[in-house]
Protein backbone atom coordinates (compact mmCIF):
# COMPACT_ATOMS: atom_id res chain seq x y z
CA UNK A 1 0.00 0.00 0.00
CA UNK A 2 1.11 3.56 -0.68
CA UNK A 3 -0.15 6.95 0.46
CA UNK A 4 -1.65 7.42 -3.02
CA UNK A 5 -3.37 4.07 -2.72
CA UNK A 6 -4.79 5.13 0.64
CA UNK A 7 -6.14 8.37 -0.86
CA UNK A 8 -7.77 6.53 -3.76
CA UNK A 9 -9.24 3.92 -1.40
CA UNK A 10 -10.79 6.68 0.71
CA UNK A 11 -12.09 8.48 -2.38
CA UNK A 12 -14.05 5.42 -3.46
CA UNK A 13 -15.29 4.37 0.00
CA UNK A 14 -18.85 5.30 -1.02
CA UNK A 15 -18.84 4.28 -4.64
CA UNK A 16 -22.27 5.54 -5.68
CA UNK A 17 -21.69 8.94 -4.15
CA UNK A 18 -18.23 9.23 -5.67
CA UNK A 19 -19.39 8.14 -9.14
CA UNK A 20 -22.30 10.61 -9.10
CA UNK A 21 -20.00 13.42 -7.99
CA UNK A 22 -17.44 12.41 -10.60
CA UNK A 23 -20.18 12.46 -13.22
CA UNK A 24 -21.05 16.03 -12.30
CA UNK A 25 -17.38 17.04 -12.55
CA UNK A 26 -17.06 15.28 -15.91
CA UNK A 27 -20.17 17.03 -17.26
CA UNK A 28 -18.97 20.41 -16.02
CA UNK A 29 -15.56 20.03 -17.65
CA UNK A 30 -17.11 18.66 -20.84
CA UNK A 31 -19.20 21.82 -21.01
CA UNK A 32 -16.15 23.89 -20.09
CA UNK A 33 -14.07 22.32 -22.87
CA UNK A 34 -16.71 22.79 -25.55
CA UNK A 35 -17.65 26.33 -24.53
CA UNK A 36 -14.02 27.40 -24.32
CA UNK A 37 -13.51 25.90 -27.76
CA UNK A 38 -16.43 27.98 -29.05
CA UNK A 39 -14.86 31.03 -27.45
CA UNK A 40 -11.46 30.29 -28.98
CA UNK A 41 -13.11 29.62 -32.33
CA UNK A 42 -14.75 33.03 -32.37
CA UNK A 43 -11.47 34.72 -31.49
CA UNK A 44 -9.09 32.55 -33.47
CA UNK A 45 -10.09 34.19 -36.74
CA UNK A 46 -8.56 37.30 -35.28
CA UNK A 47 -5.51 35.69 -33.79
CA UNK A 48 -3.84 34.23 -36.81
CA UNK A 49 -4.23 37.14 -39.23
CA UNK A 50 -1.50 39.68 -39.32
CA UNK A 51 -1.65 43.29 -38.24
CA UNK A 52 -0.02 44.37 -41.49
CA UNK A 53 -3.35 44.65 -43.25
CA UNK A 54 -6.10 47.19 -42.77
CA UNK A 55 -9.76 46.87 -43.62
CA UNK A 56 -11.75 49.85 -44.80
CA UNK A 57 -15.52 49.44 -44.66
CA UNK A 58 -18.51 51.75 -44.72
CA UNK A 59 -18.72 53.56 -41.40
CA UNK A 60 -22.34 52.53 -40.83
CA UNK A 61 -21.96 48.79 -41.48
CA UNK A 62 -19.83 46.36 -43.42
CA UNK A 63 -23.02 45.23 -45.18
CA UNK A 64 -23.14 48.57 -47.00
CA UNK A 65 -20.66 48.32 -49.89
CA UNK A 66 -18.16 51.06 -50.56
CA UNK A 67 -17.99 52.25 -54.16
CA UNK A 68 -15.10 51.34 -56.48
CA UNK A 69 -14.42 54.97 -57.14
CA UNK A 70 -12.69 55.34 -53.75
CA UNK A 71 -9.87 53.10 -54.93
CA UNK A 72 -7.48 55.74 -56.38
CA UNK A 73 -7.85 57.93 -53.30
CA UNK A 74 -7.10 55.05 -50.95
CA UNK A 75 -4.16 53.93 -53.06
CA UNK A 76 -2.75 57.44 -52.88
CA UNK A 77 -2.49 57.45 -49.08
CA UNK A 78 1.18 57.25 -47.98
CA UNK A 79 1.98 53.90 -46.40
CA UNK A 80 -0.45 51.92 -48.54
CA UNK A 81 1.41 49.34 -50.62
CA UNK A 82 -1.49 47.57 -52.35
CA UNK A 83 -5.27 47.73 -52.23
CA UNK A 84 -7.72 44.95 -52.95
CA UNK A 85 -11.39 44.50 -52.25
CA UNK A 86 -13.94 41.83 -51.54
CA UNK A 87 -17.66 41.73 -52.12
CA UNK A 88 -19.67 39.21 -50.09
CA UNK A 89 -21.50 37.01 -52.58
CA UNK A 90 -23.81 35.12 -50.24
CA UNK A 91 -23.03 31.77 -51.86
CA UNK A 92 -25.20 28.67 -51.58
CA UNK A 93 -24.18 25.26 -52.88
CA UNK A 94 -26.66 22.50 -53.62
CA UNK A 95 -30.00 22.73 -51.85
CA UNK A 96 -29.09 25.11 -49.05
CA UNK A 97 -25.44 24.70 -48.15
CA UNK A 98 -24.32 28.20 -47.16
CA UNK A 99 -20.70 28.83 -48.00
CA UNK A 100 -18.29 31.73 -47.76
CA UNK A 101 -17.83 33.24 -51.22
CA UNK A 102 -16.24 36.57 -52.16
CA UNK A 103 -15.86 38.39 -55.43
CA UNK A 104 -12.24 39.56 -55.58
CA UNK A 105 -9.77 41.05 -57.99
CA UNK A 106 -7.54 37.96 -58.54
CA UNK A 107 -4.11 39.55 -58.86
CA UNK A 108 -4.61 42.12 -56.14
CA UNK A 109 -5.93 39.42 -53.86
CA UNK A 110 -2.83 37.33 -54.59
CA UNK A 111 -0.58 40.28 -53.74
CA UNK A 112 -2.36 41.12 -50.50
CA UNK A 113 -2.86 37.57 -49.26
CA UNK A 114 0.37 35.61 -49.73
CA UNK A 115 -1.10 33.23 -47.14
CA UNK A 116 -3.26 31.74 -49.91
CA UNK A 117 -1.00 29.49 -51.89
CA UNK A 118 -1.67 28.34 -55.44
CA UNK A 119 0.54 27.73 -58.53
CA UNK A 120 1.14 30.89 -60.60
CA UNK A 121 -0.52 29.29 -63.59
CA UNK A 122 -3.74 28.97 -61.61
CA UNK A 123 -3.57 32.58 -60.43
CA UNK A 124 -3.08 33.58 -64.06
CA UNK A 125 -6.02 31.44 -65.15
CA UNK A 126 -8.12 33.03 -62.41
CA UNK A 127 -7.24 36.51 -63.63
CA UNK A 128 -7.88 35.67 -67.25
CA UNK A 129 -11.06 33.64 -66.94
CA UNK A 130 -14.09 35.89 -66.55
CA UNK A 131 -16.19 33.13 -65.02
CA UNK A 132 -13.24 31.76 -63.09
CA UNK A 133 -13.50 30.65 -59.49
CA UNK A 134 -10.93 29.45 -57.01
CA UNK A 135 -12.00 26.96 -54.36
CA UNK A 136 -10.36 26.44 -50.97
CA UNK A 137 -8.81 23.01 -50.39
CA UNK A 138 -11.11 22.02 -47.54
CA UNK A 139 -14.22 22.84 -49.56
CA UNK A 140 -12.79 21.17 -52.68
CA UNK A 141 -12.11 18.00 -50.72
CA UNK A 142 -15.56 18.05 -49.17
CA UNK A 143 -17.40 18.44 -52.50
CA UNK A 144 -14.78 16.57 -54.60
CA UNK A 145 -14.25 19.65 -56.76
CA UNK A 146 -11.37 19.67 -59.23
CA UNK A 147 -9.95 22.10 -61.72
CA UNK A 148 -12.05 22.17 -64.88
CA UNK A 149 -15.31 21.44 -63.07
CA UNK A 150 -18.31 23.68 -63.42
CA UNK A 151 -19.33 25.32 -60.15
CA UNK A 152 -23.06 26.00 -59.97
CA UNK A 153 -23.64 28.40 -57.08
CA UNK A 154 -26.67 30.37 -56.01
CA UNK A 155 -26.40 33.80 -54.44
CA UNK A 156 -28.91 34.63 -51.77
CA UNK A 157 -28.20 38.33 -52.41
CA UNK A 158 -27.28 39.04 -56.00
CA UNK A 159 -29.39 38.00 -59.00
CA UNK A 160 -27.90 38.05 -62.48
CA UNK A 161 -29.17 40.61 -64.96
CA UNK A 162 -31.69 38.04 -66.24
CA UNK A 163 -33.13 37.80 -62.74
CA UNK A 164 -31.81 34.35 -61.95
CA UNK A 165 -29.92 33.82 -58.75
CA UNK A 166 -28.28 30.69 -60.17
CA UNK A 167 -24.74 31.49 -61.20
CA UNK A 168 -22.25 29.22 -62.85
CA UNK A 169 -18.46 29.47 -62.59
CA UNK A 170 -15.50 27.51 -63.88
CA UNK A 171 -13.09 26.17 -61.31
CA UNK A 172 -9.62 27.28 -62.38
CA UNK A 173 -7.71 26.77 -59.16
CA UNK A 174 -7.65 25.03 -55.80
CA UNK A 175 -6.11 27.24 -53.14
CA UNK A 176 -4.23 26.03 -50.04
CA UNK A 177 -3.39 27.81 -46.80
CA UNK A 178 0.26 28.56 -46.09
CA UNK A 179 0.12 26.71 -42.78
CA UNK A 180 -2.16 24.43 -40.81
CA UNK A 181 -4.33 27.23 -39.46
CA UNK A 182 -4.86 28.91 -42.81
CA UNK A 183 -5.41 25.52 -44.38
CA UNK A 184 -8.13 24.80 -41.83
CA UNK A 185 -9.85 27.97 -43.01
CA UNK A 186 -9.55 27.20 -46.72
CA UNK A 187 -13.24 26.56 -47.02
CA UNK A 188 -14.28 29.48 -49.21
CA UNK A 189 -14.74 30.32 -52.85
CA UNK A 190 -13.23 33.35 -54.60
CA UNK A 191 -14.90 34.46 -57.84
CA UNK A 192 -13.64 36.93 -60.39
CA UNK A 193 -14.90 40.38 -59.42
CA UNK A 194 -14.88 41.70 -62.99
CA UNK A 195 -17.47 39.13 -64.07
CA UNK A 196 -19.56 39.54 -60.95
CA UNK A 197 -19.50 43.33 -61.25
CA UNK A 198 -20.69 43.24 -64.79
CA UNK A 199 -23.25 40.46 -64.53
CA UNK A 200 -25.12 41.27 -61.33
CA UNK A 201 -28.49 43.00 -61.51
CA UNK A 202 -27.77 45.61 -58.84
CA UNK A 203 -25.26 47.41 -61.02
CA UNK A 204 -21.54 47.82 -61.12
CA UNK A 205 -19.10 49.87 -59.14
CA UNK A 206 -19.60 48.28 -55.72
CA UNK A 207 -16.25 47.21 -54.34
CA UNK A 208 -17.62 46.10 -50.94
CA UNK A 209 -14.81 46.21 -48.40
CA UNK A 210 -11.27 47.32 -49.12
CA UNK A 211 -8.25 45.39 -47.85
CA UNK A 212 -5.01 47.32 -47.64
CA UNK A 213 -1.49 45.98 -47.48
CA UNK A 214 0.83 48.42 -45.72
CA UNK A 215 4.43 49.24 -46.43
CA UNK A 216 5.06 49.18 -42.68
CA UNK A 217 2.85 47.74 -39.91
CA UNK A 218 3.86 50.66 -37.72
CA UNK A 219 1.92 53.01 -39.99
CA UNK A 220 -1.42 51.25 -39.37
CA UNK A 221 -2.95 53.91 -37.15
CA UNK A 222 -1.69 56.78 -39.24
CA UNK A 223 -3.01 55.26 -42.49
CA UNK A 224 -6.36 54.39 -40.91
CA UNK A 225 -6.79 57.92 -39.57
CA UNK A 226 -5.82 59.48 -42.91
CA UNK A 227 -8.32 57.39 -44.87
CA UNK A 228 -11.22 57.96 -42.47
CA UNK A 229 -10.42 61.69 -42.37
CA UNK A 230 -10.33 61.83 -46.14
CA UNK A 231 -13.90 60.52 -46.46
CA UNK A 232 -15.31 62.27 -43.42
CA UNK A 233 -18.59 64.11 -44.17
CA UNK A 234 -18.77 62.50 -47.60
CA UNK A 235 -21.61 60.19 -48.76
CA UNK A 236 -19.17 57.31 -48.25
CA UNK A 237 -17.77 57.73 -44.77
CA UNK A 238 -15.34 54.97 -43.88
CA UNK A 239 -14.18 53.06 -40.86
CA UNK A 240 -10.65 51.71 -41.13
CA UNK A 241 -9.19 49.21 -38.67
CA UNK A 242 -6.69 46.38 -38.54
CA UNK A 243 -7.85 43.11 -40.02
CA UNK A 244 -7.62 41.51 -36.58
CA UNK A 245 -10.00 44.05 -35.03
CA UNK A 246 -12.30 43.76 -38.01
CA UNK A 247 -12.50 39.97 -37.59
CA UNK A 248 -13.25 40.33 -33.88
CA UNK A 249 -16.01 42.79 -34.70
CA UNK A 250 -17.37 40.39 -37.31
CA UNK A 251 -17.51 37.57 -34.75
CA UNK A 252 -19.20 39.82 -32.23
CA UNK A 253 -22.19 40.37 -34.46
CA UNK A 254 -23.35 37.07 -32.94
CA UNK A 255 -23.18 38.71 -29.50
CA UNK A 256 -20.36 38.86 -26.99
CA UNK A 257 -19.52 35.19 -27.10
CA UNK A 258 -16.78 35.51 -24.51
CA UNK A 259 -19.13 37.12 -22.00
CA UNK A 260 -21.85 34.54 -22.59
CA UNK A 261 -19.37 31.70 -22.21
CA UNK A 262 -18.00 33.22 -19.00
CA UNK A 263 -21.46 33.54 -17.44
CA UNK A 264 -22.53 30.03 -18.37
CA UNK A 265 -19.27 28.63 -16.98
CA UNK A 266 -19.63 30.70 -13.84
CA UNK A 267 -23.07 29.16 -13.23
CA UNK A 268 -21.78 25.66 -13.97
CA UNK A 269 -18.75 25.94 -11.72
CA UNK A 270 -20.65 27.59 -8.90
CA UNK A 271 -23.08 24.65 -8.89
CA UNK A 272 -20.17 22.24 -9.13
CA UNK A 273 -18.48 23.94 -6.21
CA UNK A 274 -21.56 23.34 -4.07
CA UNK A 275 -21.93 19.71 -5.16
CA UNK A 276 -18.29 18.65 -4.79
CA UNK A 277 -17.71 20.88 -1.77
CA UNK A 278 -20.66 19.28 0.00
CA UNK A 279 -19.42 15.79 -0.87
CA UNK A 280 -15.97 16.53 0.49
CA UNK A 281 -17.31 18.15 3.67
CA UNK A 282 -19.65 15.21 4.25
CA UNK A 283 -16.86 12.73 3.61
CA UNK A 284 -14.63 14.38 6.23
CA UNK A 285 -17.50 14.69 8.74
CA UNK A 286 -18.20 10.97 8.45
CA UNK A 287 -14.67 9.90 9.32
CA UNK A 288 -13.57 12.27 12.01
CA UNK A 289 -12.59 9.30 14.25
CA UNK A 290 -10.55 7.76 11.41
CA UNK A 291 -8.68 11.01 10.87
CA UNK A 292 -8.03 11.13 14.62
CA UNK A 293 -6.63 7.58 14.46
CA UNK A 294 -4.28 8.67 11.67
CA UNK A 295 -2.99 11.42 13.92
CA UNK A 296 -2.75 8.96 16.81
CA UNK A 297 -0.56 6.69 14.69
CA UNK A 298 1.82 9.59 14.15
CA UNK A 299 0.65 11.29 10.98
CA UNK A 300 1.22 15.00 11.43
CA UNK A 301 -1.50 17.65 11.11
CA UNK A 302 0.02 18.59 7.76
CA UNK A 303 -0.10 14.99 6.51
CA UNK A 304 -3.77 14.69 7.41
CA UNK A 305 -4.47 17.98 5.64
CA UNK A 306 -2.56 16.59 2.66
CA UNK A 307 -4.64 13.38 2.58
CA UNK A 308 -7.94 15.26 2.46
CA UNK A 309 -6.68 17.80 -0.05
CA UNK A 310 -5.29 15.00 -2.20
CA UNK A 311 -8.74 13.40 -2.29
CA UNK A 312 -10.24 16.66 -3.56
CA UNK A 313 -7.48 16.98 -6.15
CA UNK A 314 -7.95 13.35 -7.24
CA UNK A 315 -11.71 13.82 -7.56
CA UNK A 316 -11.40 17.04 -9.58
CA UNK A 317 -8.46 15.77 -11.65
CA UNK A 318 -10.08 12.45 -12.60
CA UNK A 319 -13.39 14.13 -13.47
CA UNK A 320 -11.79 17.17 -15.07
CA UNK A 321 -9.37 15.24 -17.27
CA UNK A 322 -12.11 12.85 -18.35
CA UNK A 323 -14.43 15.78 -19.15
CA UNK A 324 -11.77 17.60 -21.13
CA UNK A 325 -10.84 14.37 -22.91
CA UNK A 326 -14.43 13.73 -23.94
CA UNK A 327 -14.77 17.39 -25.03
CA UNK A 328 -11.66 16.99 -27.20
CA UNK A 329 -13.06 13.87 -28.86
CA UNK A 330 -16.47 15.51 -29.31
CA UNK A 331 -14.82 18.60 -30.82
CA UNK A 332 -13.02 16.41 -33.34
CA UNK A 333 -16.22 14.53 -34.11
CA UNK A 334 -18.17 17.77 -34.61
CA UNK A 335 -15.43 19.16 -36.82
CA UNK A 336 -15.40 16.00 -38.87
CA UNK A 337 -19.17 15.99 -39.23
CA UNK A 338 -19.64 19.67 -40.04
CA UNK A 339 -16.33 20.46 -41.68
CA UNK A 340 -13.86 23.23 -41.27
CA UNK A 341 -16.55 25.90 -41.44
CA UNK A 342 -16.93 25.18 -37.72
CA UNK A 343 -13.36 24.65 -36.52
CA UNK A 344 -14.39 23.61 -33.01
CA UNK A 345 -11.14 22.47 -31.52
CA UNK A 346 -10.40 21.78 -27.84
CA UNK A 347 -6.79 22.77 -28.29
CA UNK A 348 -3.80 23.37 -26.02
CA UNK A 349 -5.12 26.73 -24.91
CA UNK A 350 -8.40 25.20 -23.73
CA UNK A 351 -6.48 22.43 -21.93
CA UNK A 352 -4.31 24.97 -20.12
CA UNK A 353 -7.42 26.81 -18.92
CA UNK A 354 -8.97 23.46 -18.02
CA UNK A 355 -5.98 22.39 -15.93
CA UNK A 356 -6.03 25.75 -14.20
CA UNK A 357 -9.75 25.30 -13.47
CA UNK A 358 -9.05 21.82 -12.03
CA UNK A 359 -6.41 23.28 -9.70
CA UNK A 360 -8.65 26.14 -8.54
CA UNK A 361 -11.67 23.86 -8.07
CA UNK A 362 -9.60 21.33 -6.09
CA UNK A 363 -8.44 24.03 -3.72
CA UNK A 364 -11.89 25.58 -3.42
CA UNK A 365 -13.63 22.31 -2.53
CA UNK A 366 -10.81 20.69 -0.59
CA UNK A 367 -9.24 23.41 1.45
CA UNK A 368 -11.92 23.92 4.11
CA UNK A 369 -12.53 20.21 4.85
CA UNK A 370 -8.74 19.71 4.84
CA UNK A 371 -8.23 22.53 7.32
CA UNK A 372 -10.95 21.05 9.50
CA UNK A 373 -9.15 17.71 9.43
CA UNK A 374 -5.86 19.40 10.20
CA UNK A 375 -7.28 21.15 13.26
CA UNK A 376 -8.93 18.06 14.77
CA UNK A 377 -7.94 17.46 18.39
CA UNK A 378 -7.25 13.77 18.79
CA UNK A 379 -8.80 13.26 22.23
CA UNK A 380 -11.98 15.17 21.32
CA UNK A 381 -12.35 13.39 17.98
CA UNK A 382 -11.83 9.95 19.52
CA UNK A 383 -14.34 10.75 22.25
CA UNK A 384 -16.87 11.86 19.62
CA UNK A 385 -16.95 15.44 20.90
Amino acid at each position, binding site marked *: *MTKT*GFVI*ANLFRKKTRTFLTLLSVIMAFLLFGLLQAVNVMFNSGADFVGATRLVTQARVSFTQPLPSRLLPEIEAVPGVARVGWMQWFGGVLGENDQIVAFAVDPLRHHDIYPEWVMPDAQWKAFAETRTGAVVGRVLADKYKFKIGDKLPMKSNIFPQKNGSKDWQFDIVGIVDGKDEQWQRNSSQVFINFAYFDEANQFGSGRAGIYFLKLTDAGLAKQVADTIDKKFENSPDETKTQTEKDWNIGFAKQFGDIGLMVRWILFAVFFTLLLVVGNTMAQSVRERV*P*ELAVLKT*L*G*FSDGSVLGFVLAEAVAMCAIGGLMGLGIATLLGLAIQKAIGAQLPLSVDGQVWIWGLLAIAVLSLAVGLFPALRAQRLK*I*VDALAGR
Partner: protein
Amino acid sequence: MSNLITIRDLTKSYVRGKQKVEVLHGLTLDIPKGDFVALMGPSGSGKTTLLNLIGGLDQPSSGEISIDGKRIDKFSSGELAKWRAHNVGFVFQFYNLMPVLTAQGNVELPLLLTNLSAAKRKQNVAIALDVVGLADRSHHKPRELSGGQEQRVAIARAIVSDPTLLVCDEPTGDLDRKTADEILTLLQTLNRKHGKTIVMVTHDPRAAEYANRTLHLDKGQLAEQAAH
Protein backbone atom coordinates in the same frame (compact mmCIF):
# COMPACT_ATOMS: atom_id res chain seq x y z
CA MET B 1 14.45 -2.29 36.59
CA SER B 2 14.68 1.28 35.29
CA ASN B 3 11.55 3.36 34.82
CA LEU B 4 10.14 3.77 31.36
CA ILE B 5 7.46 6.20 32.48
CA THR B 6 8.05 8.84 35.14
CA ILE B 7 5.19 11.15 36.05
CA ARG B 8 5.53 13.99 38.56
CA ASP B 9 2.79 16.29 39.94
CA LEU B 10 0.65 15.81 36.86
CA THR B 11 -2.40 18.00 36.57
CA LYS B 12 -4.89 18.11 33.76
CA SER B 13 -7.92 20.32 33.55
CA TYR B 14 -10.44 20.97 30.82
CA VAL B 15 -12.80 23.82 30.15
CA ARG B 16 -16.28 22.47 29.47
CA GLY B 17 -18.65 25.28 28.61
CA LYS B 18 -17.98 27.93 31.23
CA GLN B 19 -16.69 25.44 33.78
CA LYS B 20 -13.12 24.43 34.41
CA VAL B 21 -12.91 20.76 35.31
CA GLU B 22 -9.74 19.42 36.88
CA VAL B 23 -9.45 15.73 35.98
CA LEU B 24 -6.01 14.85 37.38
CA HIS B 25 -4.65 16.45 40.54
CA GLY B 26 -0.88 16.37 41.10
CA LEU B 27 -0.48 12.72 40.16
CA THR B 28 2.93 11.07 40.62
CA LEU B 29 3.70 7.64 39.19
CA ASP B 30 6.57 5.44 37.98
CA ILE B 31 6.16 2.54 35.58
CA PRO B 32 9.24 0.39 34.99
CA LYS B 33 10.30 -0.83 31.57
CA GLY B 34 8.61 -4.15 30.74
CA ASP B 35 5.77 -3.67 33.21
CA PHE B 36 2.12 -4.49 32.44
CA VAL B 37 -0.09 -2.07 34.36
CA ALA B 38 -3.87 -2.03 34.55
CA LEU B 39 -5.56 1.30 35.33
CA MET B 40 -8.91 0.91 37.00
CA GLY B 41 -11.37 3.25 38.57
CA PRO B 42 -14.90 4.58 38.29
CA SER B 43 -16.08 6.62 35.32
CA GLY B 44 -14.67 10.15 35.45
CA SER B 45 -11.74 9.11 37.64
CA GLY B 46 -9.27 10.23 34.97
CA LYS B 47 -8.08 6.82 33.62
CA THR B 48 -8.43 7.65 29.93
CA THR B 49 -7.06 11.15 30.49
CA LEU B 50 -3.96 9.67 32.12
CA LEU B 51 -3.63 7.14 29.29
CA ASN B 52 -3.92 9.90 26.67
CA LEU B 53 -1.20 11.88 28.42
CA ILE B 54 1.10 8.84 28.65
CA GLY B 55 0.47 8.11 24.96
CA GLY B 56 1.26 11.70 23.95
CA LEU B 57 -2.23 12.33 22.59
CA ASP B 58 -2.76 15.29 24.89
CA GLN B 59 -0.64 17.74 26.89
CA PRO B 60 -0.81 18.20 30.68
CA SER B 61 -1.86 21.47 32.29
CA SER B 62 1.16 21.18 34.59
CA GLY B 63 3.63 18.62 35.85
CA GLU B 64 6.12 16.37 34.10
CA ILE B 65 5.86 13.24 31.97
CA SER B 66 9.08 11.52 30.96
CA ILE B 67 9.01 8.48 28.72
CA ASP B 68 12.29 6.67 28.30
CA GLY B 69 14.03 9.79 29.54
CA LYS B 70 12.25 12.20 27.18
CA ARG B 71 10.11 15.03 28.58
CA ILE B 72 7.14 14.63 26.28
CA ASP B 73 5.21 17.36 28.10
CA LYS B 74 7.64 19.79 26.51
CA PHE B 75 7.08 18.50 22.96
CA SER B 76 5.27 20.50 20.30
CA SER B 77 2.35 18.90 18.47
CA GLY B 78 4.60 17.96 15.54
CA GLU B 79 7.28 16.50 17.78
CA LEU B 80 4.66 14.48 19.65
CA ALA B 81 3.30 13.06 16.38
CA LYS B 82 6.80 11.97 15.36
CA TRP B 83 7.45 10.55 18.82
CA ARG B 84 4.19 8.58 18.84
CA ALA B 85 4.99 7.07 15.45
CA HIS B 86 8.21 5.53 16.74
CA ASN B 87 7.54 4.84 20.42
CA VAL B 88 3.90 4.06 21.14
CA GLY B 89 1.34 1.55 19.91
CA PHE B 90 -2.36 2.20 20.53
CA VAL B 91 -5.19 -0.30 21.00
CA PHE B 92 -8.75 1.08 21.30
CA GLN B 93 -11.98 -0.40 22.59
CA PHE B 94 -13.68 -0.19 19.18
CA TYR B 95 -10.56 -1.22 17.22
CA ASN B 96 -10.64 1.93 15.05
CA LEU B 97 -9.46 0.23 11.89
CA MET B 98 -9.71 1.90 8.48
CA PRO B 99 -12.72 0.26 6.82
CA VAL B 100 -11.40 0.89 3.30
CA LEU B 101 -8.17 -1.03 3.92
CA THR B 102 -7.53 -4.74 4.29
CA ALA B 103 -5.97 -6.13 7.47
CA GLN B 104 -2.62 -5.91 5.73
CA GLY B 105 -3.24 -2.27 4.71
CA ASN B 106 -4.30 -1.34 8.24
CA VAL B 107 -1.19 -2.88 9.77
CA GLU B 108 1.02 -1.26 7.14
CA LEU B 109 -0.39 2.22 7.82
CA PRO B 110 2.10 3.25 10.57
CA LEU B 111 4.98 2.02 8.41
CA LEU B 112 4.13 4.64 5.75
CA LEU B 113 5.76 7.07 8.16
CA THR B 114 9.07 5.22 7.94
CA ASN B 115 11.65 4.99 5.18
CA LEU B 116 11.22 1.24 4.82
CA SER B 117 10.94 -0.17 1.31
CA ALA B 118 7.64 -1.69 0.19
CA ALA B 119 9.13 -5.17 0.42
CA LYS B 120 10.42 -4.61 3.96
CA ARG B 121 7.07 -3.12 4.99
CA LYS B 122 5.30 -6.18 3.63
CA GLN B 123 7.66 -8.43 5.55
CA ASN B 124 7.10 -6.56 8.83
CA VAL B 125 3.33 -6.63 8.32
CA ALA B 126 3.45 -10.39 7.74
CA ILE B 127 5.40 -10.87 10.98
CA ALA B 128 3.00 -8.68 12.98
CA LEU B 129 -0.04 -10.49 11.61
CA ASP B 130 1.63 -13.81 12.36
CA VAL B 131 2.31 -12.76 15.96
CA VAL B 132 -1.40 -12.04 16.48
CA GLY B 133 -2.41 -15.25 14.66
CA LEU B 134 -4.04 -13.64 11.62
CA ALA B 135 -1.58 -14.41 8.85
CA ASP B 136 -4.34 -16.10 6.85
CA ARG B 137 -6.74 -13.13 7.01
CA SER B 138 -4.41 -10.45 5.71
CA HIS B 139 -6.53 -9.66 2.64
CA HIS B 140 -9.79 -9.31 4.50
CA LYS B 141 -11.35 -5.95 5.20
CA PRO B 142 -12.51 -5.15 8.78
CA ARG B 143 -16.19 -5.80 7.96
CA GLU B 144 -15.21 -9.34 6.96
CA LEU B 145 -13.62 -10.05 10.35
CA SER B 146 -15.07 -10.84 13.78
CA GLY B 147 -14.64 -8.42 16.69
CA GLY B 148 -11.81 -10.47 18.15
CA GLN B 149 -10.06 -10.62 14.80
CA GLU B 150 -10.45 -6.88 14.32
CA GLN B 151 -8.84 -6.31 17.71
CA ARG B 152 -5.98 -8.62 16.75
CA VAL B 153 -5.45 -6.54 13.59
CA ALA B 154 -5.44 -3.43 15.77
CA ILE B 155 -2.81 -5.04 18.02
CA ALA B 156 -0.73 -6.00 14.97
CA ARG B 157 -0.96 -2.36 13.85
CA ALA B 158 0.16 -1.27 17.32
CA ILE B 159 3.25 -3.48 17.35
CA VAL B 160 4.32 -3.37 13.70
CA SER B 161 6.71 -0.46 14.18
CA ASP B 162 8.14 -2.21 17.28
CA PRO B 163 7.31 0.46 19.89
CA THR B 164 8.49 0.17 23.49
CA LEU B 165 5.12 1.15 24.92
CA LEU B 166 1.60 -0.11 24.23
CA VAL B 167 -1.35 1.90 25.54
CA CYS B 168 -4.66 0.08 25.51
CA ASP B 169 -8.00 1.74 26.22
CA GLU B 170 -10.56 -0.90 27.23
CA PRO B 171 -9.18 -3.36 24.65
CA THR B 172 -11.72 -6.03 25.61
CA GLY B 173 -14.67 -3.76 26.33
CA ASP B 174 -16.47 -4.76 23.15
CA LEU B 175 -15.70 -8.48 23.21
CA ASP B 176 -17.26 -11.59 24.72
CA ARG B 177 -15.48 -13.31 27.62
CA LYS B 178 -13.75 -16.00 25.59
CA THR B 179 -12.47 -13.61 22.94
CA ALA B 180 -11.47 -11.12 25.63
CA ASP B 181 -9.37 -13.78 27.29
CA GLU B 182 -7.64 -14.54 23.99
CA ILE B 183 -6.84 -10.87 23.45
CA LEU B 184 -5.57 -10.45 27.01
CA THR B 185 -3.42 -13.56 26.67
CA LEU B 186 -1.99 -12.05 23.51
CA LEU B 187 -1.20 -8.81 25.35
CA GLN B 188 0.38 -10.82 28.14
CA THR B 189 2.54 -12.63 25.60
CA LEU B 190 3.60 -9.34 24.05
CA ASN B 191 4.59 -8.18 27.51
CA ARG B 192 6.36 -11.31 28.68
CA LYS B 193 7.84 -12.64 25.46
CA HIS B 194 8.48 -9.43 23.52
CA GLY B 195 9.19 -7.13 26.45
CA LYS B 196 6.55 -4.54 25.63
CA THR B 197 5.57 -2.16 28.41
CA ILE B 198 1.78 -2.08 28.53
CA VAL B 199 -0.55 0.41 30.19
CA MET B 200 -4.16 -0.73 29.95
CA VAL B 201 -7.33 1.00 31.05
CA THR B 202 -10.10 -1.40 32.01
CA HIS B 203 -13.31 -1.63 33.97
CA ASP B 204 -13.08 -5.39 34.11
CA PRO B 205 -11.32 -6.86 37.18
CA ARG B 206 -10.77 -10.14 35.31
CA ALA B 207 -8.96 -8.26 32.56
CA ALA B 208 -6.86 -6.47 35.15
CA GLU B 209 -5.70 -9.82 36.48
CA TYR B 210 -3.67 -10.35 33.31
CA ALA B 211 -1.56 -7.30 34.24
CA ASN B 212 1.42 -7.42 36.63
CA ARG B 213 -0.24 -4.84 38.85
CA THR B 214 -3.33 -2.70 39.02
CA LEU B 215 -3.44 1.01 39.81
CA HIS B 216 -6.71 2.41 41.07
CA LEU B 217 -7.60 5.96 40.26
CA ASP B 218 -10.25 7.91 42.05
CA LYS B 219 -11.14 11.55 41.48
CA GLY B 220 -7.93 12.17 39.60
CA GLN B 221 -5.59 10.68 42.14
CA LEU B 222 -3.95 7.32 42.66
CA ALA B 223 -5.99 5.54 45.31
CA GLU B 224 -4.25 2.24 45.73
CA GLN B 225 -1.96 -0.19 44.03
CA ALA B 226 -2.22 -3.96 43.87
CA ALA B 227 0.33 -6.47 42.60
CA HIS B 228 -0.85 -9.75 40.98
